């Protein structure tokens, strides 16, 4: 970046409390607060993972992941130049910064450690990943099996007959701690392979940019991306169920806007074929409906299993297409052939056999790491996390049953440290034979926090804070968030000229389309999307798959060329611009926009 450019973003200390929400600090633990010296560092708003203000409990989805991420980069593998992530919360928004190593001596020292350790994973990637999948399935089963004691009037007689010697109030806290422990283990495993995988992507991207200076990131991504990835599986299951409904002749109840439970009841009335379909639905639900309607970072991101309205909103369209004799299958063979052709042609265009060997080595490594990099999200953010939140709801139900909370869902307005206290109060009261005192303590706090959270929703978080960094070095930051030095320059320009009618992002999928925008601020609004509209969102996740059949183009605030929106848009052959930084705040629903997926520009027309 040009050193003469002295642009900067607002400093953390310059951020004003949202009026009426001055008490937001009480929602989060002390270690998440900005301190004066943080003004010296560059931070960016992690709107990809945390696009909404954080409820108190949900802050655990920043605390725990960053505990795992940094452990693997800083301590386990010792990446030579990259440490971990520091995070802070202000006005409910999560800001992060990547810590890097600049001292040459330290880099050398870390390199020696890294060189001894990283090869073990690269060389044994496939068997280690198989082991990893088993571990994750084990963790999911473990969190599912955790029993939350109900604290009835009298203890179970078995405690006496088997002389267990421990009453169930003991297990309230133990069970809660085990949930948190499983969550923490999951996040460690999440980062076990990830940065090594991103490293493989990064070197291949860099090589392609040198060999083909004009190559679009999306083209490199097309060569890297696999075809059989889990992110497409839930949508594939819906297509299977739609075909089956038509085959069995039970497709009549699938009409737009129908309540899922009404549809299920109607299908059940159709006798044997109806039951056959319902049995197949059950098969699909476990595990494929354990997919989050978001990306697993908020308690209200329920799974398809928790809320059937998302999958059932896609079914009528698929059913109609099957009836009309149209194919709804992903053309996987064609996609595979096309990918092979693209790879072969780029390879042939290289200048020498030496370059072709490098290309084969780097792309080969990308293809080895790809299944993990792509599929871990289903296991971690979707399957495990939605089960974890379900378990948390059981603790909420326990507290509500004891009168401490008005509603079990209110548990998510407590920090996990506070839930610990709330549970101890209940454990004590059950033992003492008295009433818990928590209601008087927690209820006013929860009411206040709900009010504050509502206020915080009106805040537009600046995309970044602090001085512009010289460059963005961390491979995770580059690949995962799509943030590079160019992005920063772009964002800071957007900050300076909010009147511009052009938003610049990454050209994620080619083509130019004009149409009406539908801005979805929240994943639960997914049902509002209408045929032929242009999707504008903060970020998309795998469970958004079904909506891509309806839309003409996609625009996101955050995401690079390997982000979900980019991958899916390329498969559907529709233009996409990702990583615009501010599309959801600058574009209105119903506004006419032009999406130029060749150049990465969104133009506001109306």
């Amino acid at each position, binding site marked *: 970046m040009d050193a003469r450019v002295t642009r900067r973003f607002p400093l953390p200390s310059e951020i004003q409390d949202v009026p009426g929400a001055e008490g937001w600090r009480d929602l989060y633990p002390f270690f998440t607060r900005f301190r004066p010296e943080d003004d010296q560092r560059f931070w960016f708003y992690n709107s990809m993972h945390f696009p909404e203000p954080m409820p108190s409990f949900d802050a655990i989805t920043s605390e725990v992941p960053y505990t795992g991420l940094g452990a693997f980069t800083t301590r386990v593998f010792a990446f030579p130049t990259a440490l971990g992530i520091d995070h802070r919360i202000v006005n409910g928004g999560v800001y992060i910064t990547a810590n890097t190593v600049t001292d040459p001596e330290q880099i050398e020292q870390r390199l020696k450690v890294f060189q001894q350790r990283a090869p073990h994973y690269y060389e044994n990637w496939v068997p280690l990943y198989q082991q990893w999948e088993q571990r994750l399935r084990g963790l999911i089963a473990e969190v599912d099996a955790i029993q939350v004691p109900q604290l009835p009037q009298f203890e179970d007689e078995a405690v006496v007959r088997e002389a267990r010697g421990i009453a169930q109030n003991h297990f309230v806290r133990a069970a809660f701690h085990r949930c948190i422990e499983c969550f923490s283990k999951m996040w460690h495993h999440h980062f076990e392979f990830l940065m090594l995988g991103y490293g493989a992507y990064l070197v291949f991207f860099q090589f392609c940019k040198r060999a083909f200076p004009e190559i679009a990131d999306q083209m490199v991504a097309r060569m890297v991306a696999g075809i059989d990835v889990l992110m497409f599986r839930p949508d594939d299951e819906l297509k299977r169920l739609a075909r089956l409904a038509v085959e069995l002749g039970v497709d009549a109840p699938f009409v737009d806007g129908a309540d899922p439970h009404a549809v299920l009841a109607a299908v059940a009335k159709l006798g044997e074929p109806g039951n056959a379909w319902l049995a197949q639905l059950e098969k699909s639900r476990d595990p494929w409906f354990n997919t989050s309607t978001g990306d697993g970072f908020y308690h209200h991101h329920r799974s398809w299993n928790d809320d059937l309205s998302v999958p059932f909103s896609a079914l009528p369209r698929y059913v109609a297409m099957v009836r009309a004799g149209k194919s709804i299958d992903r053309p996987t063979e064609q996609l595979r052939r096309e990918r092979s052709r693209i790879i072969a042609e780029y390879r042939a265009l290289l*200048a020498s056999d030496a370059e072709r060997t490098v290309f084969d080595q780097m792309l080969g490594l990308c293809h080895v790491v790809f299944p993990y990099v792509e599929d871990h999200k289903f296991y971690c953010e979707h399957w495990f996390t939605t089960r974890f939140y379900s378990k948390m709801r059981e603790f909420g139900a326990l507290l509500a049953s004891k009168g401490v909370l008005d509603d079990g869902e209110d548990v998510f307005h407590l920090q996990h440290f506070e839930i610990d206290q709330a549970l101890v109060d209940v454990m004590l009261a059950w033992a003492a034979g008295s009433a818990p005192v928590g209601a008087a303590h927690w209820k006013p706090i929860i009411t206040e926090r709900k009010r504050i959270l509502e206020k915080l929703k009106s805040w537009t978080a600046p995309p970044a804070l602090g001085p512009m960094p010289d460059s963005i070095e961390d491979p995770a930051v580059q690949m995962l968030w799509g943030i590079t030095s160019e992005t920063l320059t772009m964002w800071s320009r957007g900050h300076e000229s909010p009147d511009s009618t052009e938003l610049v992002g990454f050209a994620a999928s080619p083509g130019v389309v004009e149409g009406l925008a539908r801005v979805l601020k929240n994943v639960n609004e997914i049902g509002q999307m209408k045929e032929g509209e242009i999707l504008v969102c903060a970020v998309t996740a795998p469970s958004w798959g079904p909506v891509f059949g309806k839309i003409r183009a996609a625009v996101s605030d955050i995401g690079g060329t390997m982000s979900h929106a980019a991958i899916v848009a390329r498969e559907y052959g529709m233009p996409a611009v990702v990583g615009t930084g501010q599309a959801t705040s600058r574009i209105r629903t119903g506004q006419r926009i032009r999406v130029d997926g060749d150049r990465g520009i969104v133009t506001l027309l109306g």
Partner: protein
Amino acid sequence: MDGIAGEWVRWFGDIGLGDRPLVGGKGASLGELTGADITVPPGFVVTTAAFEAALAAIDPDGAIRVHIGRLEQDDLAAITAAADSIRERFLAAALPAGITSDVSEAYQALAGPALPVAVRSSATSEDSAEASFAGLQDTRLCVQGIEAVLQALRACWASLYSRESVSYRLRLQLPEGQVAMGVVVQRMLASRASGVMFTRSPLTGDRSVIVIEGSVGLGSAMVSGEVTPDKYVVNKVTGEIVQRTVSAKAVRHVAAFDGGVRIEPIGDAEQRLPALGDDEVRELAALGKQVERHYGAPQDIEWAIAPDERGGERIHVLQSRPETVWSRRDAQPVAQPAARAYDHVILALHNRRR
């Protein structure tokens, strides 16, 4: 349009790249393209042997070549004096009889008594991978009637001794004895659009894109710099048009069928119309890919879109020469193979701060 030919001419269908010493660079390339089933306006080449015979007629002792070989590349006055005098002698001399009759017969077979042709120089030294000689030698458009063709033939020969051409040869230290001039005579197109195509980005050397520049009318308007062409960048692998830049085009060159080229102003409303439709851009790119594959190396291609006999339009290739600028820089690979694939990651993580 091949078959019978006199001693001094060769039809495109009968020659290929290997015939460069006999027909020059452009002629060899057009013959090669014709043989590869790429659409080229039909024509023939007046061979370098004819040039040698004509040169011998005005300079039986071979003094011209000796004199030029001894010139200093910086001595512009001496170069100018020598070049001017040689050109005058070429233009004034009568053609050896056999050449006149061979060219007349071939012209008659190609164009009938009066159809317009393009007469283009085809030096043995031009359009090689080492030296382009771009635009240094003569091309005459819309030449009609055998007398005019013969005059254009002399002019092409003479242009080998233009001041610029001689200086260029001296600077590159090309042996003067190996420099000779073939002359291409081919059917003139009434081009609706024309331009150049680079099967490798001239800007970055990227081999995965094709850059097409085009304007309306004959290509001479672009070559002379009178119009800024429209520019298209096409991905060579997917065929996607990744960039379109349409410029205002104030004039077009059209064939004046009484001979030569007429400059025609373009109305304000039309100036910003694209010279090419997307389908044409894609078709051109596919053609570029085909030509590149035939030669096995990136090419700079001149093309034109002109009406065909069936009332439609057709893309013609007027010239293809190997790309010379970036191909010299390819010797250094952008990265070296590593012992193990993941060594690339270790290396990259280590080097990022440097």
